């Protein structure tokens, strides 16, 4: 392959060179409970094994500060589903933990909503 041809292939418009779910070795479903978009995750400080994917290492670095799944997917510029699988592994292996207990299934409670209302009005 000559150089000019390679450049063509590396052009961004050609799409990602690695298909999104290659990062997860083809797995499309996270291990354990599916993490919600606004689940807040933080590292546990447990030392990671050498077998982590580079993307998982980046996630661990980012999670030194608590971040939501949506934040992480946006910062890594990886599709949400992929990040869900990668974080599922980290969670399963005790490398990250959910910071705030998950929201109740139905709806945030009245007191929290009142708080949000006051926050929005003051914005």
């Amino acid at each position, binding site marked *: 392959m000559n150089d000019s041809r390679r450049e063509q292939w590396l052009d961004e418009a050609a799409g990602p060179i690695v*298909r*999104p*779910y290659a990062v997860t070795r083809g797995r*499309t*479903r996270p291990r354990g409970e*599916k993490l*919600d*978009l*606004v*689940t*807040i995750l*933080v590292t546990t400080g447990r030392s990671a094994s050498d077998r982590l994917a580079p993307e998982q290492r980046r996630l661990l670095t980012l999670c030194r*500060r*608590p*971040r*939501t799944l*949506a*934040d992480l*997917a*946006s910062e890594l*510029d*990886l*599709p*949400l*589903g*992929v990040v869900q699988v990668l974080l599922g592994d980290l969670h399963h292996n005790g490398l990250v933990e959910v*910071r*705030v207990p*998950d*929201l*109740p*299934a*139905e*709806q*945030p*409670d*009245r*007191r*929290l*909503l*009142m*708080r*949000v*209302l006051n*926050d*929005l*009005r*003051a*914005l």
Partner: protein
Amino acid sequence: MTYAPYDPADGPRVALKILIAGGFGVGKTTMVGSVSEIRPLRTEEVLTDAGIGVDDINGVEAKNTTTVAMDFGRITFPDGIALYLFGTPGQQRFWFMWDELCYGAIGAVVLADTRRLTASFAAIDYFERRKTPFVVAVNCFDGGRRYGMDDIRSALDVDPDVPVILCDARQRESAKRVLISLVEHAIKVGRP
């Protein structure tokens, strides 16, 4: 609820979701952008896990996943509550994503355009059936014909309790008012 002093470096304390739904070109991106810091969020959704065999990979990949670009914005309040806004495509084929977005959400804003009110019917149906609190915000574009509120309400055929409000998605104050009315509505219809 009492909160200890909050340091933004600690990350959000509580993160809550609001959906912004509506048809193509109705102003979802504009609304998310006018009231929050907007950021890109990609999803590569797998449509089905079935039937992916070694033999039939050729030409099938494109059918197995579909890329959905979402508008994603975040407002972080001084007390550590973070509000996440997700602008999602309104077509029925994206409903598989809405279930996940709706889970535990405060509610939804259905953004509508008076020139194409029918484009919001599917979203209204969805939230009604799912009992997700929602408001309808009619985005008033320049040059868009102004209708009376009663006309719009009867055309939308929403429950009398559902707030229907006019807005200008480009204006921060207007977008803020829409969010405020959604939260007020969620408080009214929600659990005690």
